[in-house]
């Protein structure tokens, strides 16, 4: 997402400012230096037409240089302030980094345009450093040091320009040496970024890679909620306390198991006696019984033996199995001689067998009780562990109210004096949302709300009756076990184009977004997002011989089709027809992923279709089987293995890794593949662009609006375009661009991307959603050169894309081509 920060609004140069500049020029640039870059020299002798169009004056090369120097100085000062703030805060705050990035980006473009390659390169290095910081590749101290020396190098280089009229290369060389000393390889990072941009030009893929890097890095800093931390500590302590009862329960099970084993062994020893009773004489069986069991079977006999032992002085060990057989026999004989209790051998054996059985039953019962107790304790422990995990999630969470307050601030900024016309309702303040997720969602949600306010307030989209009504915005959040749902409602209709950026972010979070229109004209954006970025509830599905995982949050419902054995293909065809008849676009997952189709499906296999949580058109993904629902842990793929919509894997529990699919992104990429041929045709058109001879002068006086936050760029363009006979107006940010559009009705817009108060893409998006501006030609003029940005511009409706620094000849040719050729085509040029 492009930077968006209202705090960074660049101040416009008034006439007073220009006078100050002139004074500055008189002081420091009294002489013209022939070594000054030719670009600047070429830019002289041009007619400068002021914004009002009333006065025309010529800016000399010195004045242009002064303008650049002043602007560069301001940018460097802003960077220094941001750096100082970082040092004070002792943490890498994203706001300060944004300021640094924006200033560096702006300065890189401006310096490149004026031909100051060293300054431009140093600024690019600063951008790279910030990128490294965002990816957590640099420590806090190294970051501060690197930024400090980089800004110092900028200062020194600017000083050389101001002092000598040309830039010194030495600060850049020294800086690169310092980077080496700090073991920062900015060149390698540049190369990697370039190759990735080339190799993986798809926007969703790039975002996926970003997602992968973020997963790897785990974010810049961990902010912990003290309340949640205390709760988590308590839960963790309770979990530890559960260890003793669980160990005790385990011991009880072991004891019960031993008892059971003993009882079983006694029973086992009785088994041969029972069989021998049937085949051998009774005496023999009884002797065997005495021999095996170890003591006479009757308790009465035991008492008698005990009395006998007192008489004889021998103390019998009634449970000793290892007693000498002769002694036992002697005791048995004694018992026989006494003739006290004549029990039959069969009765003795039966009674013994019954006792042994009872012992086994009793031991079994004790074991069952012990197991039940253990299982209860283990369940308690698991529940407590789950609680700790939940509270660990909450540790990194923010309440939804944080988003609400940000939304309120954005409303106040955009609506200004009309903020009374906006009513914000929030519910679910206390719903905890993972801070990574909230940070990802914050900007796009605020962006949507801001753009909607701009639409309603500044484009008069409301009817007379509606004008009396206040615009109502409702923000609602609620949580389930595995998901967070956020609803954003508007009392006015909303263009689906406004949510494109938010949609991308939600999809990258393995969530879904739907736009629901109600009969009373209200519309609601409904977001479903997994609660965690690492552990996601998903469906394990089979396509061919492959199993893949899909986030539950992206599936609206599953349409099952139970197929019969030996089912004919016609039935399958009917299944697809049913879905098609319901208005779904049907895709087969096999085909989408290029997985070979199995010739025979498993018997009784369940064919199913995953109906995705998308508005229009409804998407159904046919799979061979929905195996189960499972919570899985994402593991990022190496960047070169990432595919659009496939950036992570998860374990299937059998040691294999399965792909985690982001189905909306895959479907989006499917459409993109289909459009590749068209894009090539457009590129071919662009390659022939400029060959036709056209007059450099416009046939009629066309009006061009320049939207750029760099004063230098604006004035430089202003002079050249005015010289070519165009009427030129300027805007310093996104909001002013929209304002100028309605006031000036220009024929062409030169639009920068990185601007405060609505970036270039936002502006482009808004403009193209309004029919009244359909004839407006839009040229994106930006230093962003990656294919991702070009594609986005093309998709949003830009007519051409030029990369700064761009020669005036190319710019003029592009403009005249667009004015001369009404046929829609996308012009692209990268220098």
């Amino acid at each position: 997402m492009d930077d968006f920060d209202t705090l960074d609004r660049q101040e416009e140069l008034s006439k007073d400012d220009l006078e100050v500049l002139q004074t500055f020029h008189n002081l420091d640039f009294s002489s013209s230096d022939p070594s000054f870059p030719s670009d600047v020299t070429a830019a002289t002798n041009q007619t400068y037409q002021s914004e009002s169009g009333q006065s025309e004056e010529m800016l000399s090369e010195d004045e242009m240089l002064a303008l650049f120097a002043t602007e560069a100085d301001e940018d460097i000062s802003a960077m220094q302030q941001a750096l100082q703030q970082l040092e004070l805060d002792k943490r890498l705050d994203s706001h300060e980094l944004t300021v640094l990035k924006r200033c560096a980006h702006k300065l890189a473009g401006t310096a490149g345009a004026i031909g100051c390659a060293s300054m431009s390169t140093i600024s690019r290095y600063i951008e790279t450093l910030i990128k490294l910081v965002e990816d957590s590749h640099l420590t806090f101290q190294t970051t501060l040091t690197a930024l400090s020396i980089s800004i110092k190098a900028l200062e020194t280089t600017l000083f050389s320009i101001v002092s000598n009229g040309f830039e010194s290369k030495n600060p850049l060389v020294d800086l690169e040496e310092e980077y080496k000393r700090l073991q920062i390889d900015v060149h390698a990072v540049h190369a990697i970024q370039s190759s990735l941009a080339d190799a993986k030009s798809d926007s969703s893929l790039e975002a996926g890679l970003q997602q992968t890097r973020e997963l790897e890095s785990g974010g810049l800093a961990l902010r912990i909620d003290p309340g949640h931390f205390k709760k988590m500590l308590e839960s963790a302590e309770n979990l530890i306390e559960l260890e003793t009862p669980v160990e005790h329960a385990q011991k009880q099970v072991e004891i019960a198991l031993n008892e059971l084993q003993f009882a079983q062994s006694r029973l086992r020893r009785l088994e041969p006696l029972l069989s021998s009773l049937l085949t051998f004489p009774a005496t023999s069986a009884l002797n065997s019984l005495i021999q095996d069991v170890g003591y006479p079977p009757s308790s009465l006999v035991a008492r008698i033996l005990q009395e006998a032992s007192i008489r004889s002085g021998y103390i019998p060990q009634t449970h000793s199995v290892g007693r000498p057989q002769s002694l036992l026999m002697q005791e048995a004989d004694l018992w026989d001689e006494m003739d006290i209790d004549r029990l039959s051998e069969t009765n003795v054996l039966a009674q013994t067998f019954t006792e042994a059985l009872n012992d086994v039953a009793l031991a079994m019962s004790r074991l069952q009780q012990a197991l039940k107790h253990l299982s209860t304790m283990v369940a308690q422990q698991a529940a407590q562990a789950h609680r700790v995990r939940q509270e660990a999630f909450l540790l990194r969470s923010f309440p939804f109210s944080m988003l609400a307050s940000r939304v309120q601030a954005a409303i106040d900024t955009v609506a200004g004096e009309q903020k009374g016309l906006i009513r914000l309702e929030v519910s679910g303040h206390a719903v905890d949302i993972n801070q990574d997720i909230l940070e990802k969602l914050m900007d796009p949600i605020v962006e949507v709300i801001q753009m909607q306010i701009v639409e309603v307030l500044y484009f008069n989209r409301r009817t007379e009756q509606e004008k009396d009504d206040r615009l109502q915005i409702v923000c609602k959040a609620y949580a389930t076990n595995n998901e967070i749902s956020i609803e954003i409602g508007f009392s006015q209709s909303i263009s689906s184009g406004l949510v494109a950026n938010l949609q991308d972010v939600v999809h990258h979070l393995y969530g879904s977004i739907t736009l629901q229109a109600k009969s009373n004209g209200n519309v609601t954006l409904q977001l479903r997002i997994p609660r965690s970025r690492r552990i996601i509830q998903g469906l394990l599905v089979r396509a061919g011989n492959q199993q893949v995982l899909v986030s539950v949050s992206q599936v609206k419902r599953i349409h099952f089709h139970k197929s019969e054995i030996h089912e004919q293909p016609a039935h399958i065809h009917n299944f697809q027809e049913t879905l098609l008849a319901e208005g779904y676009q049907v895709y087969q997952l096999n085909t989408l992923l290029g997985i070979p189709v199995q010739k025979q499906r498993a018997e009784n296999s369940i064919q199913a279709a995953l109906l995705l949580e998308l508005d229009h058109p409804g998407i159904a993904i046919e799979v061979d089987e929905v195996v189960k629902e499972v919570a899985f842990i994402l593991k990022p793929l190496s960047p070169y293995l990432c595919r659009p919509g496939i950036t992570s894997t998860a374990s299937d529990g059998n040691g294999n890794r399965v792909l985690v699919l982001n189905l909306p992104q895959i479907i989006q990429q499917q459409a993109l593949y289909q459009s590749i041929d068209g894009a090539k045709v457009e590129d071919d058109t662009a390659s022939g662009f400029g060959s036709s001879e056209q007059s450099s002068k416009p046939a009629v006086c066309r009006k061009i609006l320049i939207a750029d936050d760099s004063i230098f760029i604006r004035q430089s363009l202003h002079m050249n375009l005015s010289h070519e006979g165009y009427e030129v107006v300027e805007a310093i940010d996104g909001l002013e661009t929209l304002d100028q559009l309605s006031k000036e009705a220009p024929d062409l817009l030169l639009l920068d991307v990185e601007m405060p108060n609505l970036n270039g893409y936002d502006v482009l998006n808004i403009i193209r959603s309004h029919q009244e501006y359909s004839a407006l030609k839009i040229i994106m003029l930006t230093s962003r050169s990656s294919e991702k940005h070009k594609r986005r511009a093309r998709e949003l409706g830009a007519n051409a894309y030029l990369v700064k620094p761009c020669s005036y000849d190319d710019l003029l040719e592009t403009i005249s081509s667009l004015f001369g050729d009404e046929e829609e085509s996308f012009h692209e040029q990268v220098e």
Partner: protein
Amino acid sequence: MLPLHSLSANDLERMADEEFWNYARAYANTVPPLSSEKDNYQDQYLECELSSGTCLIPLKDVIEIIPSPQQHTHLPLAPAWLRGLVSWRGEAIPLVELDSYLNGVSDPFSSGMLVIVSYRALTVGLFVPDIGLTTPVRFEQAQTFPGPGIFYTPVRAGVIKGIYAEEPVLDISALLPDVIRQIGMRTNG
């Protein structure tokens, strides 16, 4: 002292303890010192069987050799020579069918060995039908690669370091970046 291979297990068993350990110590002293072993190791190459013969892979680049897993994960938009992804030490790494990559010869259902090779931070599994012995090669002994088109397709010529005993010697430092680049660039569609 008799060489180890000339003694049977019975011979060793019959030795008295003192005699056995004296023999073991004396035999251990015959092993070359560590530094020269390391030098030798640097020159060791693993013979890997391919449909057109064998090729040599520098042993220093080999991390592990395992039987090729039966299951692999299909990766969309991948070159034909990429069988898919396999899990190795918990990571998903690409499984490259070396024969298909070098010669365009593919047998997707064959079983064989997986030679895990690594260069810098890149790790790739090379599937080969079988592996042979390790061969010491002083690289000056290897012939300069005679040029593309004789053994391998011109596209792959850059990954052949030279020819030794009519066997191509692979340059893993060139092969792995090429593999990675080609897997990555396929996402361009």
